[in-house]
Each structure stands twice: as C-alpha cells, then as structure tokens.
C-alpha cells in the first residue's frame, strides 16, 4: 500500500468536536421529503450524473429513524404539514433541515389557500436552496453549505438541542 505502510502505529491529536463534526458532515443520510418537481431534481442529484455520494450524502433513508438531514423538496400543503412534522419529530438528533426550492422555502408562486408559506414557520431550516426547481448543482452546493455549517457546530449545543 501507499501512505499507510510508511507509518507504524500512530497517534493523532485533534479536538473531539472537530472529529465528531468531521464524521457527521461526511456521512449525511438524507430523508427525502419529496412532494413535487424539486424531488425530480433531487433524484437527479443522487443519480450517477451529479452523484451526491461524492459528498457523503447518498444514503437516502426512507425511515426517519435512520436519517439525519431532511430535504424538503416540493410544495407542502396544509394537509401535508402535520405529516412533515411527524417525520421531523421522528428523526433523532442531531438533525438538520434543507428547504429545497421556492415552494418549500416561501410558498413560491402558490400564494393560495392550501399551501404552507415556508416550512421554516414550523421546523428550523438550516439551508435554503433557491430555484424553481433548483438544479442538482444547487442542491449539491447546499449540501456543501450544510457541511460548512456542521463544521462550525459545538458538540454540546447540538446534543442538547437548539
């Protein structure tokens, strides 16, 4: 082998905070809450052409118990919002939320009787992804932004909630 063979048993010193954050940001398991066209772009981002797995976020989990970043991609109607809240509450800490596209972030063009005007009224959103729908590159950029954010987190604050 290469580099590994030139080192014997070794010790590195680091901060626990940085080690944990490094592990967390590099293994994001998304919960896809895809309800509309944004979900198609999310699928494209996960597919081989854009390949979100390059950034450690390809293990899509359809069980909220196993995921730690919720990607809200699409319109959220008032009938869907309780479902979203339930899924969000079922996700274990630490967890993050990515609001993808105009509809999830602010209602978009649907300023109507049935649509929630931004999921951030109900759950804490970490990164907003602009676009209608955003291109896969934009979603990947949002994942990188989220990773930067996770990198700055204090372990204790995250564990004990916001």
């Amino acid at each position: 082998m290469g580099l590994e063979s030139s080192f014997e048993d070794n010790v590195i010193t680091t901060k626990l905070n940085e080690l944990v954050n490094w592990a967390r940001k590099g293994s994001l398991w998304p919960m896809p809450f895809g309800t509309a066209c944004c979900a198609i772009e999310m699928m494209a981002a996960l597919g081989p052409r854009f390949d979100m797995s390059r950034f450690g976020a390809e293990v899509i989990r359809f069980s909220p118990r196993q995921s730690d970043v919720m990607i809200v991609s699409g319109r959220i109607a008032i009938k869907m919002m309780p479902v979203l809240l339930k899924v969000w509450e079922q996700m274990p800490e630490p967890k993050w939320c990515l609001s993808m596209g105009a509809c999830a972030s602010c209602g978009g063009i649907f300023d109507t009787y049935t649509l929630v005007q931004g999921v951030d009224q109900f759950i804490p959103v970490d990164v907003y992804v602009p676009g209608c729908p955003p291109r896969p590159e934009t979603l990947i950029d949002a994942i990188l932004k989220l990773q930067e954010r996770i990198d700055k987190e204090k372990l204790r604050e995250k564990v004990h909630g916001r």
Partner: protein
Amino acid sequence: MAVESTRIKERFAGELLDAPADARQPHVSVKRGRIVELMRYLRDDPDMAYDCLTDVTAVDYLNRGLWERFAVVYNLYSFSRNERFRVKAFVPEDDPAIESVAALWPAASWAEREAFDMYGIRFTGHPDLRRILMPDDYPGHPLRKDYPLKGRGERARFPRYSPQED
C-alpha cells in the same frame, strides 16, 4: 340538434332548460329533479348506451344570470357508439344538493366527493360523502368563485402534530 337532445326533450320535457343546437360538444342543461332517471336512461337505453361516465364536476356560475348558481356537469362516453355527451344539472345556491349517480356508475363516487369538497354541493344518497382533497376539518369550499384565493386564514389554522398524541 343532436339526437340525444331531441330524445331528452321528448322524454324529460319539463326538466330541460336548454339544448343548444350548434354546440360542438352536444350537451343539455337540465333541472336537478330527475337527474338519476335521466342518467339511467342515457346509460341503459340501447340508442344512447352511454356506458362510461368519464367525469362528474361542477361549475360556479356566480353572477352569470343563468338558471341557478351551480351546475353539476356529467361527461359521458359511449364505447359502442364512440360518442360523447354532456349533461349540466343546475343546482340552486340556497340548497346546493343533487341526487348522487354513484349507484349507476361507481366511478361517480370520488368525482362527486371532489365536487362536494370544492363547491359544497351535497350529493344525496352518496355512499361516503367526505372531503377528498382538503383536510377533513377544512371550513370552506375553495373553488367557489366568491372564495378568496389566499383563503380565510386556514393557512395559519390547521391541526399540528404534537408528539404527545402518539
């Protein structure tokens, strides 16, 4: 005039409100009273044979000066004759109710639920008349023309999920 309109004129004379002769899609406007009888005739008569109900929906003719405010629209199709026909049954605003045709075509069931949900038209005799799109406790009927686009504050008042409920 389409043969359907002529026959309906003969058989359901008192019910007919309008049967335009020059419509590209043959249709009749009728009163709501004998709607099930009329639809059964259109389905079962061998000269009609409209065996497929493609849709039931409603229209809000608010301030249009027609016979009544609402119309329940039945779109029919005959497989054997490859013909389409449309029936509009007018329903008054103060008593928005009409007999259900779900017993004739099971396909009418969900379509009538949608018309009930969006326009508040009650389909009497429907086996399960609940809202189909909006939440069960939604207060209004949002496709009515006098309903504001942004709703009446329903966006701020809807049942939240609280973990204590489970």
